[in-house]
Structures are given as structure tokens and as C-alpha cells.
């Protein structure tokens, strides 16, 4: 300062000013150094932390759904498959203007058929990057949406993302629904095979990692990044189910469930007795696989509609869950007289009776210790041999056999036939039996007595058909299965299900004898409701009182029928159980017999089992209609007569203009061919009368009166008391004169 010679009044900047300047800037410099230090810390020391954080937001990690495996039936028909669909995701955080929000809400809601206000609310979630606005969209809709997005120049805004996904579809709706089961919204199997084989079907999800900018859009080409981990597609299942047999079984079962006013559903199972393969497993009422959450049973819906509030919701949930349950494997029932098949096997195997010499006397009841057990025929069956007691389904006789065996031996075979263990069928929720459901080895004589006629214990339908199959195949208890093969995405076989023989329960000789007696009872005996022309069917009906008290106090039953055919070399077994029929005749032979009969009559020829007709059967067999169209009426008459057919001529023409049935049509011998000889007569229509309830002769008379042809199935040809239980064209239907109507006959004899 002493050197400051620029003078006291100088305008020159002073040295002090310079020092103070330096002082200020050194302080600013210190701040700068501190900030540079912080910068170094963030940028160099914490580099890894911040880059990781940054990269995690700059990368878009998309889960690539694997293709869920297809479920095929044994013929390769698709029962369940995943189709590509699209999901639309919106990032409201990228919507800048209210105008855009309105536009999206108005238009996109219309395009996607979703609620406008709900969508508008979503567009206002300005912090959200992920709002799913629609899923499972099919291509045409997605195409329209994409076009709309482009037209409105929203395609580079990161507002919409459309990602591919899969949708599970079931081409046949309700077919085998309780067996196949369904998946939840995330394609996780919830019921049936979809659940049991979820891991096999679902595959492994893949990933697609791409670089994205701050609004979820694409990074420029120079900064793109893409890493793909391919999804591993799920494996395919090939079922043992044959969709044709399944359809046949469901058709007949549904008919019985409706006609007999069944309130607790019915089941029909068809099993290959040699392999354990389940060919059909039907439950009615079931549900639509494509719409599993809706209750299908109309009467249940009517009942629910009358409720309100919580009771209504509860009832709806219960009804929903009930329709999903595979009754064939998950519910217990009491078999009644069908079980006499096994009591017979035990008695013959242990030698307590034989088929020829042993006689039984039935006074109409049987006293066991303090109890009296009545026969269904109160006046008794009198003196009988073994085949008679099966045909008569005689309770006292079977109780006699049971008591002769004793509890210990009875229990041994009860276990042997698999009634105490799960069958091991490969589907979810097979009900596991427990000692509370049956009598143990130390059972009392009364227990033995009731058990030997199939009462006071419970089993599952799948246990029953597995045991019936054991009788049919010579005594071997098999493990039933639904999935015969697992194939990978490319069709290579990964695993094949082999037949598992668990054990031989009784000797082949014993089963042959029992089969013969069962077949005899079908052929004109007490089991004739399952008679199928051309095939020797073995079978036994059963009716069991439900012991549970019902609210309305009514007495309800399980009516069931167990069959297998052909008796000489059994191929399939078929079991039908009707739970709580409310028809006037609730016996198993009436409610379940015609179902088995119908299934066997179609399934056996379908499976290529050659019919073997008796002479009587042959006589009543069908013949083929000749071609007489265009011929002279007199010539036509002769030709038709030569084919064992009658003729009915309409009109006054000289030549035949049209004939019904047409040429090559199969109708029973003795049927009528209607000839139309002039224009006026062509296409004469008749109204179908009611055949149900008629005997065969009544039906024949009626048919010829109406100039219709009938094709008779079931018994009827050999039983005067059988009446028509089913006609394929309902009363009131309008058909061309001469058309063929199929009638099914069954007896009304009450055989328990």
C-alpha cells in the first residue's frame, strides 16, 4: 500500500481492491474445488452405482410368454390350444394434453369395447407408465387400433404398447370340461389336467431386453441394445380320451340327466379294460371351458336368481365350484348292487359257492344277528342257482355269500380290488378314501352282510370302473390314466404312459365265470336294459339309497350301471352313475342302463369291434333300400318287395319321381319305402308321433300308420314288456314321409 503511488485522488483501481478481488475469487475457487471434488466422487468413485441405476431404467425388460402346450385327444384332435392374442398397455405419463386424453378415451374405448369413463380415469394417472387397458385381443381389433394410433400420430409417443400374448381356447366348449379343466388369467392351470400337468404345459418364459428412452420409446439406432432369451414352449399332451366316444357318452348321459330330473349330476366313464386308458370321462352338468365362470345349469341359475345379497353370491360361488368338480374322481358314492360283481368273484375265488351246484333260497329277507335285511322283491326269489341270483340281484343270496366269506376274507378282496386306495389316475384332486368310508378288517357280520350287497360304504366312480375292468381283463387291477403321451413343441415324444398292472386280484377263471353270468343276465335276464344287438354285454345295475337326509325329506338314490363288452374278449368297460334322479322310476337299470346301452352301441362299432349276431338278431337286421327312382311304379314295387321291404305309393304318376328313404339307406327289414309318383305328392310331410312308452308292436303299428320307418336299438325285439324310452326325432317334428326314426327300448322291470 505504501507502494501505491497512483495518488490518493487517483481514479486508478487500488492495490487493496486487487487483494480483496483475489480474496473473493479464492473463496469462489474453494467452492469450485469442493464441487469438482463432489463431481469426481459421483462420476468416478460412484460410477458403477449410478450407471447400474441408469441402465436399469434405460432397459426395457419384457417377459416373453412361452406358448402353452396343446392338449390333443388320442386321434390328434385339438381339445385345448393357445392362440396368439394381444395386450394393450398404456403409459399415461406420456400423455401431455387433456385433448389427447379425451381423444383416447372416446375412440380407444369404442375400438376395444371397453368402458369410456374407466379408460379416461386411467389416462389421468399421470405418474403411471403401466396401465393394462385390454387383453386377449384378436388380430382384427389390434390392426384397427394400430391404424388409429398411426392416424393420430401417437405412434412415437410411447403412450401405447401392444404386446403379444396367448389365449387359451377350447374348440369343443364343454366337451370333457371337468377332465381338461381350465387356466386362470395368468394361464396357470386351475382345474383338471390343465392344473395337474401345468408345469409340463406351461414351458419357461423368455425375456426380451431392449434399450428404451425416457418415455418408453425406442432409442436411436446407434444406442439400440437387444438381448433375447428365448421362451421355451410348453409340451403337448396326448390324452387317452377319444373325443368321439366322449361325445357319445356325454350325449346319452345328458339325456338321462335331463329326462330323469337329476339334481346332483351324473357321470359316465369308458375305460379300455386292457390298458387302463380312459376313453371317455363325462360329467353332466358340467361347464363351458371357454366361459368357466358362468354357471351352465339353468335350473340352478333359476334358483339363484330368486336369492339376493350375500346368499346369492354364496350360491353362485358354490354352483360355480360344483360344476368344475370332476365327479368321476372327486366324489364318493355308494355302489349298491353293482358291487355284487365283486362279491361273486370273491365267493367263486374262495370256493364258498360254485356256478352249478350251489343253491340259494330267498324268502324275501335275510336275518343277520339282530337285523333283518330285506330283498328288493319282498315276496322273495325262492330257490335259485348262482346265475339266477345275479340276474335277480337277490340280496339274501349275496348276504349268504358274504357271511360265508367272513369279514376278513371280504376285506382282503375289498382292498384287492382297490376300493381303499386311490387309483393313481393322473388328474388333480382324486378323492382319497379313508377308513371312515368303509368297514375295516374287523367288521361285524351285519357290516359284512350290507357290504356284500354294496351298501354302507362309499367309493369313487374311478375306483369302481377300475375294479370292473379288473373283472373284465382276467383279474388284473390296472392304473387308469388320461394322458397317454407327452410330446415336445416339435412333436417329439418325451414320454409315453405304459400300462401299469398293480396286481392280479382274482384268477382269470373266476372272472370268466362271473362274466358269463353277468352276460346271461343282460341277455334276457335282469340286466337286459344294456342289451346291444351284435355284442354280448356283461353288466350289473345298482341302486343305493342316499342316507343323507335331504332338506325336503325326500328319499334320493344313486342309480348306477356297470358294464363291459364284448363278454368273450372284453375291450371296454362303461360305468354310469346318476346322482339323485327324480323320475318315477329311479332304479339304476332305468336311469343308468340306457346310458351304458347307448354308449356301448355306438362305441363298440366305432372301436372296430365286429358284431356277432345271433340268428334272431340277424332276422331283424336292417336291409339296404334299392334305387327305384325313375323306374316304372310296378317295377319299383317288385324290386322293393324283393328286398323284404313294404311300399307305400303316393300320387297317380306312372314313374317314381322320388323315394324316401333314398337308395342305399339302411332301414330294418319290413320297413316301408314311400314312392312319390307325381309333383303334388313329392315331399309329403308327416308329423312325428310320440313313440316313447309304446311297446315294440305298438310302435310298429304306429310307424306304418304314419308311413315312417323305425330302427330299433336296445332290447325290444325279444322282450314283450320293453317300452320305448328314446326317439331321435321328438314328437311333433315334421319329416318327409318314409323317413327313419331311431327308437330305443328298455324294460321297466324293476331290478335293483
Amino acid at each position, binding site marked *: 500500500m505504501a507502494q501505491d503511488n497512483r495518488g490518493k*485522488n487517483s*481514479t*486508478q*483501481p*487500488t492495490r*487493496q*481492491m*486487487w487483494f*480483496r*478481488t483475489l*480474496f*473473493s*475469487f479464492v473463496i*469462489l475457487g474453494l*467452492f*469450485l474445488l*469442493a*464441487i*469438482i471434488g*463432489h*463431481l*469426481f466422487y*459421483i*462420476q*468416478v468413485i*460412484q*460410477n458403477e*452405482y*449410478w*450407471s447400474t*441405476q*441408469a*441402465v436399469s*431404467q*434405460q432397459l426395457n425388460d419384457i417377459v416373453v410368454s412361452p406358448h402353452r402346450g396343446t392338449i390333443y385327444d388320442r386321434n390328434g384332435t385339438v381339445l385345448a390350444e393357445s392362440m396368439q392374442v394381444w395386450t394393450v398397455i398404456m403409459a399415461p405419463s406420456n400423455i401431455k394434453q387433456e385433448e389427447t386424453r379425451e381423444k383416447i378415451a372416446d375412440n380407444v374405448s369404442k375400438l376395444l369395447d371397453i368402458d369410456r369413463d374407466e379408460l379416461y380415469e386411467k389416462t389421468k394417472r399421470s*405418474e403411471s407408465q403401466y396401465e393394462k387397458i385390454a387383453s386377449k385381443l384378436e388380430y382384427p381389433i389390434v390392426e384397427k387400433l394400430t391404424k388409429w394410433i398411426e392416424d393420430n400420430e401417437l405412434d*412415437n409417443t410411447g403412450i401405447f404398447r401392444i404386446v403379444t400374448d396367448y389365449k387359451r381356447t377350447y374348440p369343443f366348449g364343454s366337451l370333457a370340461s371337468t377332465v381338461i379343466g381350465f387356466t386362470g388369467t395368468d394361464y396357470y392351470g386351475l382345474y383338471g389336467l390343465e392344473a395337474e400337468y401345468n408345469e409340463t404345459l406351461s414351458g419357461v418364459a423368455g425375456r426380451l431386453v431392449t*434399450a428404451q*428412452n*425416457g*418415455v418408453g*420409446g425406442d*432409442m*436411436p439406432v*446407434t*444406442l439400440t441394445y437387444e438381448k433375447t432369451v428365448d421362451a421355451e414352449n410348453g409340451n403337448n399332451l396326448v390324452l387317452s380320451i377319444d373325443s368321439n366316444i366322449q361325445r357319445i357318452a356325454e350325449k346319452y348321459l345328458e339325456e338321462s340327466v335331463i329326462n330323469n330330473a337329476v339334481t346332483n349330476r351324473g357321470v359316465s366313464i369308458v375305460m379300455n379294460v386292457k390298458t387302463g386308458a380312459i376313453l371317455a370321462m363325462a360329467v353332466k352338468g358340467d361347464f363351458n371351458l371357454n366361459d368357466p365362470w358362468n354357471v351352465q345349469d339353468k335350473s340352478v341359475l333359476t334358483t339363484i336368481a330368486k336369492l339376493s345379497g350375500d346368499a346369492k353370491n354364496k350360491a353362485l360361488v358354490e354352483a360355480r365350484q360344483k360344476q368344475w368338480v370332476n365327479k368321476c374322481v372327486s366324489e364318493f358314492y355308494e355302489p349298491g348292487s353293482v358291487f355284487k360283481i365283486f362279491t361273486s368273484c370273491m365267493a367263486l375265488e374262495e370256493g364258498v359257492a360254485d356256478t352249478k351246484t350251489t343253491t340259494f333260497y330267498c324268502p324275501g329277507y335275510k336275518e343277520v344277528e339282530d337285523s333283518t335285511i330285506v330283498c328288493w322283491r319282498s315276496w322273495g326269489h325262492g330257490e335259485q342257482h348262482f346265475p339266477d341270483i345275479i340276474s335277480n340281484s337277490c340280496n339274501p343270496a349275496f348276504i349268504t355269500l358274504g357271511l360265508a366269506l367272513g369279514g376278513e376274507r371280504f376285506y382282503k378282496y375289498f382292498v384287492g380290488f382297490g376300493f381303499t386306495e386311490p387309483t393313481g389316475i393322473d388328474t388333480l384332486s382324486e378323492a382319497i378314501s379313508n377308513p371312515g368310508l368303509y368297514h375295516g378288517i374287523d367288521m361285524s357280520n351285519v357290516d359284512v352282510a350290507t357290504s356284500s350287497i354294496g351298501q354302507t360304504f362309499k367309493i369313487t366312480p374311478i375306483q369302481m370302473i377300475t375294479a370292473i375292468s379288473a373283472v373284465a381283463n382276467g383279474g388284473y387291477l390296472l392304473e387308469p390314466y388320461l394322458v397317454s403321451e407327452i410330446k415336445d413343441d416339435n412333436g417329439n415324444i418325451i414320454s409315453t404312459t405304459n400300462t401299469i398292472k398293480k396286481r392280479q386280484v382274482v384268477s382269470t377263471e373266476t372272472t370268466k365265470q362271473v362274466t358269463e353270468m353277468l352276460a346271461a343276465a343282460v341277455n334276457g335276464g335282469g340286466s337286459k336294459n344294456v342289451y346291444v344287438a351284435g355284442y354280448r354285454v356283461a353288466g350289473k345295475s345298482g341302486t343305493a339309497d342316499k342316507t343323507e337326509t335331504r332338506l325336503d325329506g325326500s328319499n334320493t338314490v344313486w342309480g348306477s350301471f356297470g358294464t363291459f363288452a364284448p363278454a368273450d374278449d372284453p375291450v371296454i368297460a362303461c360305468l354310469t352313475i346318476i346322482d339323485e334322479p327324480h323320475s318315477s322310476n329311479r332304479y339304476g337299470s332305468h336311469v343308468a342302463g340306457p346310458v351304458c346301452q347307448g354308449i356301448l352301441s355306438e362305441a363298440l362299432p366305432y372301436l372296430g369291434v365286429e358284431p356277432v349276431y345271433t340268428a334272431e338278431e340277424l332276422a331283424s337286421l336292417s336291409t339296404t333300400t334299392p334305387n327305384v327312382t325313375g323306374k316304372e311304379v310296378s317295377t319299383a314295387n317288385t324290386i322293393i318287395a324283393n328286398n323284404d321291404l313294404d311300399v307305400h305309393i303316393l300320387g297317380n304318376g306312372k314313374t317314381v319321381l322320388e323315394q324316401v328313404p333314398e337308395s342305399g339307406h339302411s332301414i330294418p327289414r319290413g320297413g316301408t319305402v314311400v314312392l312319390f309318383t307325381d309333383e303334388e305328392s313329392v315331399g309329403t310331410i308327416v308329423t312325428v308321433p310320440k313313440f316313447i312308452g309304446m311297446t315294440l308292436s305298438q310302435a310298429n303299428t304306429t310307424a306304418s300308420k304314419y308311413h315312417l320307418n323305425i330302427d330299433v336299438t336296445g332290447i325290444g325285439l325279444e322282450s314283450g314288456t320293453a317300452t320305448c324310452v328314446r326317439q331321435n326325432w321328438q314328437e311333433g317334428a315334421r319329416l318327409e314321409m318314409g323317413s327313419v326314426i331311431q327308437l330305443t327300448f328298455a324294460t321297466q322291470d324293476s331290478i335293483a
Partner: protein
Amino acid sequence: MANEPSQLSHAKPSKIFYAKNFDKFLFLFVLLLLVVGLMCLFSSSHAYANYYENDSYFYIKKQLVFALIGLLVMFAASIVDYHIYHKFAAMFYGVSVFLLVLVLAMPSSTGVHRWIYLPVINNFQPSELAKFAIILLFAHIISLNYKSMGNTKMFFITMALLGVVCGLTIIEPHLSGTILLAGIGIIMLFVGGINRPLLGLCIAAGIAAVAFLVFVKGYEHDRIEVWLDPMGTFAKDRDQAWQTVQSLFAIGSGGIVGLGIGNSRQKHLFLPEPQNDFIYSVICEELGFVGALIVIVLFLCLIIKGLSIARRANDKFGSMIALGITAQIFIQLLLNIAVVTNSMPNTGIGLPFFSYGGTSLIMLLGEIGVLFSVSRQAKKRVK
């Protein structure tokens, strides 16, 4: 006082224009900063411009025009003899105060009254003008009253003048502008020889008041929360911490040498308005710590050049003007870098020469022009 005739006679300009002695180094440093700044602006803005304006060149085109206008203003100012500002200093200040009041009546954008909307220059920030007005006014006062600067009366007069503009700026509210104004003013007053005990007291009182408002009253609580725990706040409320966290992501991704020029990922719509306050984050990401330091060194060259001009200036008026302009650039650099590195709570302030904006760039280059003018009449060296 300001109208003492003996002092005024020394400050009388000899003429209106003075065009000798063009400062080539100053020009080199300014040009370097301007060119590098424009390059960085293009790199950081194109993705944002393409997305929001449908034109990658939207910001760079406008900024180039602003730079050219700015350079013309700079040359014009450089040949004006700076002594004429003695006449305009008080008027400039008056206009600034008027505009700062006027801006409060302007329609607010999200509760902030910071811009006056003009047809040609778009948005004009009166606080930009106020900075220059304070520099001229204080240079004017200090140069004429250097002797009496130390007395209490001068302290209150100058502090009142500074307080008015700072007060008007803070109620906009424009915190960074206030800090910048206060910083320039205090440094100039300190260098000009203001009463130091009073100044110390005043600064201490200011710090105490800020601490009281922030920590006791909970003013600016959200901003402070983000500052202290950016990632924690980000997890709770993305929007609130978004700017700061995105900036840290960008800077932290850079490492020592950066991702390479043009390769910033964060500028792709993660960083909000990367062409403005957070342009330095993009520089850090693309050029790394090395590039970030180079930019700072460029600024330091200019600052040292500015200080050298202040040191060699022909008179106190020129020296104080040069000091004020240099201090402004330095403080603005500090504030911007401190904000983007989260060294201080977030307040919006641009990086001189780099950030997009017409008013600030033209004003800045105009001030540099005044610096040239001071440099023209400065001595070659000081003994």
C-alpha cells in the same frame, strides 16, 4: 456522493467510441466457450427437440441465431467507451426495478412470475437485466465514492439498493437469480471497500435467516429432502426427485472418459429439458470427468482473463465493471454445477454460453462486449 463534481470530472469519457486495442485472448476464450457450448447444446437437445418439436435442429437453429445477434451486440458494445455508462447506471437500475415489479403482474407459469412475454424475443427475464444493472450501478457508485465507501451510511444505501432487486427477485420467486444478484453485489461492495464488520454481520444474519426458514419453518422442505436423499425421495415420489436423480444418473454414468460424444442415453427424454439447466449433466455423461474438467478450465481461462482486465483497468469504474461481469460468470458457473451435481438444493439456473436461451446469451455476450471495452483502455501491465 454521486454528484461530487471533482470526482465526476475524472470519469468523464473523452469520446463515445473507442476502438483500439482489441483483446485477442479474451476473444479466443469467448469464442472457444461459445463454439463448445453450441456443440454441446446440439448434442444434448436434438432428441428432446425431435420428440417435442418434431425437429432435431429446433434449439440449435435458434441458439445459433441468438449467438450471432449476441456477437454483433458484443462487438458493438466493445467499441462503446464504457464511461458513458456512468450516465446510464442509475437509469438502468430504475428500469430493472420497474421491470421486476412488472413481471410480478405477468401471468404465472406454475406459480412462478419470471418472464415477460414479448413478441420477438419471446420470453424476457428482467432478472438478467438486473444483474447488469447492479454491476453498472455499483461500479458507478464505488468509483465515485471510493473514499467514503467504508462508512455506515454508504453501507445502508448500497445494501438497500441491492436489497430492492434481491427482494423483488425472491418474490417471483427466483431463488438462483437472487443468490446470483446478491453474490455479485456483495463481491463488488467488498472489493469496493464497504464496511467489513457490517458486511460480515449482514452475511451472518442472512445465513441465520435462511437456516431459520429452512430448518425451523420448513421452507422448501421438498427441495431439501431431494437434496439430502435423492434416491430415497425418488423411490417415494418419482416426479419430485426426477430432475436431480436423472442428472445424477447421467453424471454418474460418465465415468472418467464418458460414453463418447453423442452417446448420452439420459438425454433421450430422461433428463427434462437437457438443453437448459442440465446441459452440464449431458456433458459429464458424454465426455466424462475429463471433459467436465476441460469445460471448467475453459471457464477459468475466461475468469482469469476477466480478473486480469479488472486488475489492469484504466480506472476504478472499468475495474469494477470487469470484476462484476467476471464474478457473475463465475458464480453462475458454480451455481449451475452445484445444482446438477446435487451439491446444493435444486434451483433453476443455466450454464453461461451453454444453456439454451436468447435473453441470457445476448445479455452475456453484450456484457462480454463491455469487458472488451474496458480491456481496450486497460494498461498493458501493472507494476
